[in-house]
Each structure stands twice: as C-alpha cells, then as structure tokens.
C-alpha cells in the first residue's frame, strides 16, 4: 500500500548515515504534510465516517447525539420508495448536468478555436469571455440572474425588442431549469482558457501537413484537434460533471427549487433536509448516495477513457 520511495537505501549500501538520513527525511516529510494530514483526518475522514454512521440512524439535530437510533437501511428505503421529492431531485440534477456541462464545453472549445487564430484583440476577448466565470458563483450574479429572467427583466425586454411576447421563465416548470442551465453555460470561460492552452501546444506543422494532403477543416478538426485535445476534454468533463452534480447556490437563490420542484437539485434538497428539517440522518444517507453516484460516474469515465482519450507517448526520460 505505502509505496516505497525511490531511494529506500536497500541492503546494498545501508550505511548508518543513510539510514539516519532516511529516517530523518521521513520525519521531515510528515512535518511538511502534517497540516494537511491533520485537517484530512479531522475535517474529511472522520466526518465521512460519522456521516456514514448517521446515514443508518434517524438522528435529528434538534435532539442530543445520544438519541440517535440505529434504523438500518430505512433511510435508503425511504429515499427510493416513498420520498417522491428525492426522485424529482435526482431527475432535475441529471437533467441539469446532461445539458449544462456538454453545452458549456462545446462553447468553450468553439470559442477557444476562434480565439486561437492569432488575430488582434485576443487578450481583450479572452478577458471578456472569462469575466462571467469569475463572478458566476457569486450571490450578486444569482440575484441579477433572477432579474434578468424576471417578468419585467432584461431577457423579456430583449424578446420584446425582437417582437416576441414576454413570458414567465422562472415560474414556468418547463423553463425554470433552463435559466440555470444558461447560467452554467454562460460561465464557459475557464474551460475555454484550458482548451486555449491545449490548442497552443498542437504543432502548426500538423495542420500544414494535413492541408497539403487536401484535408478539409472538419477533417482536421476530427483527426488532429480532437484527438490531441482529448486528455484535456476528458479531465474537464469529469471535474465539471462532478461539480455540476453538487450545484447549490444558484438554485438556492434563483429558483429556490420551485416551480413544482423542477429545480430542486440534489445538494439543495440535502441542505433542506439537514438544515431546515434537521433530519441529519436522512440527509447523510442522501449525501452518501451522492458520493456513490459521483464515484460511479468517475469510474465509468476513467474506465472508458482508454477508448477515446489519446495520450501522446511521452518523450521524457
């Protein structure tokens, strides 16, 4: 399990000094990672185990800890059988992730390719496209978004300008979730920067050679750009999907889960159960199912990656 470091000083030259150096190096290593290790145990590992225990109890934070009663798998049963809200929350979250994340990455890649043409003004464009990403998670933008899609808001104003009649966006069960998806896609700036860095590393000769062979733009995109960028796309897809499954703030502020629970995202529902209904046991069970869902997706993406992610053979020694 614990991997032996590169210089374990085996029998060959186990001089006393080397042994001492090695022991000392162990000590120093643990001193340096000590802060992280302590925090990891105190704020990640132990809470995780506690959460796992709570998920099998009916613990409510209104009572004292010792009143928590072991109820076996009842929390999990309740989730998948009687709690219709839970099923809705899962559905809404998946709907959101399935649309928001691929759309965001497509925008990011498209814009990255447009900006990677060496024309002037690239710095300015890059900054402007990135700006929504840095403020996107803030309450200010969430408050603004609620007004953008309000009945009298900017979007309806824009539609009126085009001659389209105004509609309710946030109050309509069909469209409310799309205001959140649009908000997520709007923040395509950081994957765009990552793709831009990736595109810069593709040698121009590849494209030149392809042009000489008469390859079309689409051909070059499919045969050169996509494969060489696939590791980057792959990592972004995983990380963004995971953060998409955990989205909370925007739904909390903009729609509050309404209308008809169509935007009741998983994290929002956990928050409601834990901090508004004080059902810590039930909320912990939901959190652990979320963890399993994330682990499952991460595993699928990692497993399948060898099929579609192209890694250039490393030339380093």
């Amino acid at each position, binding site marked *: 399990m614990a991997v032996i470091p590169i210089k374990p000083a085996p029998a060959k030259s186990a001089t006393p000094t080397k042994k001492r150096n090695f022991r000392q190096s162990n000590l120093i290593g643990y001193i340096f990672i000590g802060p992280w290790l302590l925090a990891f145990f105190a704020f990640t590992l132990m*809470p995780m185990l506690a959460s796992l225990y709570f998920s099998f109890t009916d613990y409510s934070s209104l009572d004292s800890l010792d009143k928590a009663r072991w109820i076996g798998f009842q929390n999990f049963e309740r989730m998948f059988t009687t709690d219709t809200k839970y099923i809705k929350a899962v559905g809404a979250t998946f709907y959101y992730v399935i649309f928001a994340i691929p759309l965001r990455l497509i925008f990011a890649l498209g814009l990255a390719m447009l900006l990677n043409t060496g024309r002037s003004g690239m710095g300015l*464009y890059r900054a402007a496209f990135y700006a929504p990403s840095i403020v996107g998670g803030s309450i200010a933008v969430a408050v603004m978004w609620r007004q953008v899609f309000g009945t009298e808001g900017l979007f309806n104003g824009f539609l009126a300008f085009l001659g389209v009649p105004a509609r309710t966006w946030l109050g309509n069960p069909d469209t409310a979730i799309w205001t959140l998806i649009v908000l997520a896609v709007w923040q395509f700036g950081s994957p765009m920067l990552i793709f831009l860095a990736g595109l810069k590393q593709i040698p121009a000769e590849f494209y*030149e050679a392809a042009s000489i062979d008469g390859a079309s733009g689409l051909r070059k995109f499919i045969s050169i750009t996509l494969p060489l960028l696939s590791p980057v796309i792959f990592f*972004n897809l995983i990380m963004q999907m995971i953060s998409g499954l955990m989205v909370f703030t925007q739904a909390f502020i903009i729609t509050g889960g309404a209308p008809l629970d169509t935007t009741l995202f998983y994290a929002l529902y956990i928050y409601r159960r834990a901090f508004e209904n004080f059902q810590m046991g039930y909320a912990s069970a939901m959190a652990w199912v979320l963890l399993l869902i994330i682990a499952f997706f991460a595993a699928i993406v990692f497993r399948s990656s060898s099929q579609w992610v192209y890694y250039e053979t490393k030339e380093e020694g």
Partner: protein
Amino acid sequence: MKAQISSFILHPLFFTPKIMSLSFDLSVPKQKRELIKSFFYHLFVGGFCLLMVYPLLWLFSSSLKPTDEIWRTVMQLIPSSITFDNYVNGWAGFGNISFTTFYQNSLIYTVLATLITVFFSGMVAYGFSRVNFIGRKFWFACMITTLMLPVQVVIIPQYIMFSNLKWLNTLYPLLLPRFGGQAFFIFMIMQFVRGIPKELDEAAEIDGCGKVGIFFRIILPLIQPALVTCAIFSFYWTWEDFLTPLIYLNSPKLYTISLALRSFADPSANTDWGAIFAMSALSLMPVFIIFIFFQRYLVQGISTTGLKG
C-alpha cells in the same frame, strides 16, 4: 498557418455561415480578402463578447439609474441621468446594520482564509514534491481523491461537531479547515515546483541547508507566482463563498457580503431594486479590480493545471 485560420473560421461548426467562404470572389486581391475576413471575424466574436458581458453591464447600468427607471428602460444601457442614490440607500443595509459591517466581515474572513490556505498549501506541496517519505504516494492519492468529494458528505458531521463545541457564530468553523491547505492549490503548486531544478535543492543541501531551510530560502521565493495565483483564486472563492457562512453564521452582525446580499435581495422584504443592484454591483468590485490587475496569473494558473471546478 493562413489556411488553418480560415478553415477554423469558415467552418459551419464554428458558428459562421458557410456562405461567407463562397461569397469571396477569388478575383479580389488577397489582402482585401483578408481584411474582409478580419472584419467579419471581429464583428462575430466582438458581438458575441458583448452578448456575454451584457448582463453584467446591465447590472452596473441599472445600479446607476433612478429607481423608477430601471424596469421602464430595461433595454437601455445608458441611464438618462446618473444617480448614486442607490448606492447611498443600499449601503444603509437592513436591521440597523450597514454594509460597512458586512464588508468588514467579508474582508476579515477572506484575507485570513487566503493567507492561511496559501501558506499551508505551499508547505504541503513542498513536502509532497521534494521530500521522500514512506506513504507519500498513498497520501497524495488521498489528497487528489478529495478533489472529487462532495462537500455534503462532510458538512453535516462538521456542523454537528462545531455546534457541540459551541463554535457556531464564530470564525473557527470557517478558518480551521483551511490550515490543511486546499487540494486544488497543493496540486497547482506541485506542478510549479516540478519546474524548479532539483540541482538547486542539492546545492543548498551540500552547503548545509536542511529541508526546512530549502523550503523557506529557495522554494518559497521561487514559487511566488504560483502562490499569487492561489491567493487570487482563494480570494475569489472565499469572497463568493456562501454555503459555509450560511450554515455557521446566523447572526446578521456576522454576515458576510454573500449572506447580506441574499437577505437584502429577498423579494418579499425589499423592493428597492436600485439599491439591490447597487449593492450587488459593489460586491463584485473587488473581484473585478483583482481580475484587471492579475489577469495574467489567473490565465497561467488555469492553463498549467488544466483543471478547475
């Protein structure tokens, strides 16, 4: 190179109608053709840019409009008359607590959290990348895994723990976890440390410098760009942090900007939209100012790690 450019722009996948490429008469001189292409490029990309930043511009412009004008002239970006009344009204806050308090709270939280996070992330990153010790790879794998861990799994027991310690409405629950650094930053700094030649460490070691000395005298000064990048991200994420303060800070006197804005913009309690827009816009100011001055670091940070949540 040129061929590559045009194929990117003219391809239908990239939102430009294919007709454009057909409309260029080949008899037009090459330079002129380039100019026309360039014009359409900037028209399209620039237009799209404007569309993307438009909501933000709208927010700022609305905050400067007289209150009765905000909804009447939704599409008008330039106010008929500029007024700062909204900022004055908004700053008064709610429940006899002004935004001065909220800004103070946010600044204290953000600055302390950032300093702690960045220093300890640097320290841990050095340990992982330059010191050999048993279990290094195992702990590193653990750290990377926490990047994918949903915060909901740990936040409930954390809350129970901190509330049993009677630490609700204090800064401890917000700051203590920061002493371990942050996995994303540790990873980013490690990438940076890899670029520093090991010979430097070895030379210092020969001169009698211990690992601790190497960290403080050699690595720490050299990783400053990475630390700045981490500091900026940490500042942003803490400034915009909502869930942690929401759970641990219940007293309005302790509210951060995020919490205050949420209460202030509650549609059932406040309908002074001018003031709401003004305070929202103001809360984004530090973010934009830092963005303008440190953009280079941000771009580098994102590009070198290749991932960001």
